[in-house]
């Protein structure tokens, strides 16, 4: 199960934090900093997986942004690695060549995209067509 999803830039600024487990605010801040510290030191020769406390982080870097998913140790690494890419492709389509600024200015819409694709720490929908159709429909609502 997904414990949290984080999008951070290289400087460590959080662009999205979605939690599927109860943490208090201080703990969240600590997690955000820890994830940044373990992920940014890794290079292309490293795996996309890092052990993290009692969990593991599956992450992928897109330009200056790190997309990180924290999951249980027994979870399928590659499935979540591709879930990240699937999510990024949806964002790219939805924001028409997504860039970091889109996520800043439309932070409240990013949450909607996340909820369409992931819910309660599980993968909810994987079809890009279906997700985009739904987002387009919501976009048309007042």
């Amino acid at each position, binding site marked *: 199960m997904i414990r949290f999803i984080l999008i951070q830039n290289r400087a460590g600024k959080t662009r999205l934090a979605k939690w599927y487990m*109860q943490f208090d605010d201080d703990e969240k801040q600590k997690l955000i900093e820890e994830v940044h510290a373990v992920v940014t030191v890794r290079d292309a020769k490293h795996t996309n997986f890092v052990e993290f406390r009692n969990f593991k982080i599956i992450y992928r870097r897109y330009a200056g942004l790190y997309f990180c998913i924290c999951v249980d140790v027994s979870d399928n690494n590659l499935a979540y690695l591709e879930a990240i890419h699937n999510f990024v492709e949806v964002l790219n389509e939805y924001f028409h060549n997504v860039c970091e600024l889109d996520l800043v200015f439309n932070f*409240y819409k990013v949450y909607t995209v996340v909820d369409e694709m992931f819910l309660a720490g*599980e993968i909810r929908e994987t079809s890009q067509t279906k997700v985009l159709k739904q987002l387009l429909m919501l976009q048309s*609502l007042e």
Partner: protein
Amino acid sequence: MPAVSKGDGMRGLAVFISDIRNCKSKEAEIKRINKELANIRSKFKGDKALDGYSKKKYVCKLLFIFLLGHDIDFGHMEAVNLLSSNKYTEKQIGYLFISVLVNSNSELIRLINNAIKNDLASRNPTFMCLALHCIANVGSREMGEAFAADIPRILVAGDSMDSVKQSAALCLLRLYKASPDLVPMGEWTARVVHLLNDQHMGVVTAAVSLITCLCKKNPDDFKTCISLAVSRLSRIVSSASTDLQDYTYYFVPAPWLSVKLLRLLQCYPPPEDAAVKGRLVECLETVLNKAQEPPKSKKVQHSNAKNAVLFETISLVIHYDSEPNLLVRACNQLGQFLQHRETNLRYLALESMCTLASSEFSHEAVKTHIDTVINALKTERDVSVRQRAADLLYAMCDRSNAKQIVSEMLRYLETADYAIREEIVLKVAILAEKYAVDYSWYVDTILNLIRIAGDYVSEEVWYRVLQIVTNRDDVQGYAAKTVFEALQAPACHENMVKVGGYILGEFGNLIAGDPRSSPPVQFSLLHSKFHLCSVATRALLLSTYIKFINLFPETKATIQGVLRAGSQLRNADVELQQRAVEYLTLSSVASTDVLATVLEEMPPFPERESSILAKLKRKKGPGAASALDEGRRDPSSNDINGGMDPTPSTVSTPSPSADLLGLRAAPPPATPAAPAANLLVDVFSDGPVQPSAGPTPEETFLSELEPPAPESPMALLADPAPAADPGPENIGPPIPEADELLNKFVCKNSGVLFENQLLQIGVKSEFRQNLGRMYLFYGNKTSVQFQNFSPTVVHPGDLQTQLAVQTKRVAAQVDGGAQVQQVLNIECLRDFLTPPLLSVRFRYGGTPQSLTLKLPVTLNKFFQPTEMAAQDFFQRWKQLSLPLQEAQKIFKANHPMDAEVTKAKLLGFGSALLDNVDPNPENFVGAGIIQTKALQVGCLLRLEPNAQAQMYRLTLRTSKEPVSRHLCELLAQQF
């Protein structure tokens, strides 16, 4: 083409965000935010009612400010108001604000229930989804109480839209995980399984997650899902790459759904139905076949998605562990990945192979890859990959390749990252011990470990080598010779000095015949290291010296000279000073015979689970246990190392490192002279520190636990309890805090039972089967003698028929500052609910004193831990399903909820902790048998912490009703 421009719809928000981004400093940002907060506050407070749009915009700004890391203390009501808007964009912002901020303000939840109820009932799928997402995101118990009953209905209703079903399934999953008691099982559960057949793949994707969770908790009720999952999987796997359209990802049909289905199947053993099984095996073969086909795309997405399914397939094959053909194929496939250019695949292959190594079918196949794995250990750039390689080498190690693997790991250790050195050290130490054919190899290996990575050789490791050398006389001479040689190095690690000091102190005589290692040479070699060592090591060396006086009388004068030196006798460190003084006196006053008795060679250590293994398990968590347990199944390991047998240690201590040498007979906490925490006192505690203590208590401890035969001398000397028993009517009621004191000892066996200004009572006990022995230490804290000192044990009520306690008489006078010890032999005849009482009377300065305590003997002390597999556990759990056999308590946590502490307490309570039984890893499951003379009572327990609510639910099932209740009450007070 859906595309959105920056902040469309809310210009004010976009402007605000730009302003913040343009701030040059933190101060400027705070200033801008404060200005905005003031503006929003005035808008919200203003007389003019705000329209929905403005409300939405301001709430959204507040949310942005919160996400920047600032506290928000208003605006909640406006957000709640947005929920009742009938415009989607307004509702969405309202829900978002609540989902994000709810942690900081749970008061909010009560205010929004109504709005959520309305949206759930609205029949508008968009609104329903918003409401469901909000429940799923918050997922609190309050939410569960309000909605858990409604959601199953929405999930299986014929007219629910697909997207609503998807959200409802996962929403229910979240509530079920948070508070399973709130989700009513019922007719819907049967229908939920059939969602596996749903036309809409998205619905199936969401539903599988829910079904998997339900299966883990109630495997029997959901068995029908097996065949449905297999047929769904089969349809996906055999489809052409374009059949599934929307759900094909880079030419791979529905990879995420396939993974989820394969994980669902891992909740169960292989299907019993031959047709279903045949179809499933066909699927697994298809996946393995496809892995050999040329890729349909060069994109990494294609290979990742394909391999995600492949790895999950291999996991299922390993889980079944019954198809040798598939296991070997899986192993070959992973073998190919070991050399793949993608680091991810090499990593995952190493990880997956580690579990394959423990299957008897594939162990040999895994071993053929040893060279590749050794190469990975040497060349991989990513430390986590090297770590997996080390794990795999450890898992594939057996007698045939142990020497190679150990020497490769030792070589690797010289350049290994600091982060993993300690783990490698532990692994080498375990393998060397487990597969030692001749023990000289073992000794060499451990000394090499200390030489190469002395700083990472923990106490457990060097204690263990001492235990083994002490217990095996065929290696003692070799060990003495080898450490003697190792100590010749000009710079040797302090751990080497410790091991050397101990071994020469015990077995130095075995090499004393050689003039090159004559007693004076041995002594001066050790003493040359003395001044560079820490206090702990110097203390150990002092003990070695006194042992030398016994072994080699010719060194006596030299050593006495060393002990007499001002630097020892007046050492600022109290431990060193005390040792010097006591050892010097001992060597001067004691006759050779006494000296020889006191300083005799250490007796063999009782065999128990290797402390190193325990340490590795603690380091690696439950994940490592499976690979390690494999070692247990290997029958050949037992002859060499009985210590690997999981002999249940009757000493319950949360930290195995505290009693490594099995010398729990350390001075009890009440002894003022030597702090119990000091390891070195432990090492020689039977010797010079308390020369008058008599035989090693640990030695007699376990052996005397057998029921005393009537003619045994011990029984003759012992006062039968009733004779000294004044009867309950003669003693006062227990002191008010007696219950509290008793509670402290439910999960532990030693500590200070009672203390006031006059008296301290320490207790130390050990239980095995239905027998126990307890040492009570009465310390006189005053400077005046206690007179007529008489502690007695009283059995209130029926207890006499349930518990037999024999006490030995103690001296009637206790001098000021002195301590006396009383031994109690305890036998549990049948289950009992009240503890015996301890009444202590004495005269202090002419005034009679009396005191009644509850003796820390509770029923759980007679627990014998029982290991069992998940299946057995559930079977037994079901067998104990009469309402009276179960006792349950839900209670608030009184202490911080720390999983490690909880574990330690449960182990201390006496039951075995079973891993991988409860599907929820947060929960604890235990099993054990209460041993009494008349009967045995099987007990199962389950503890479910709820960190969010700071509550626990504890369930006990035993075959005897009062026992369930009693244990439940005892244990519930511990958290």
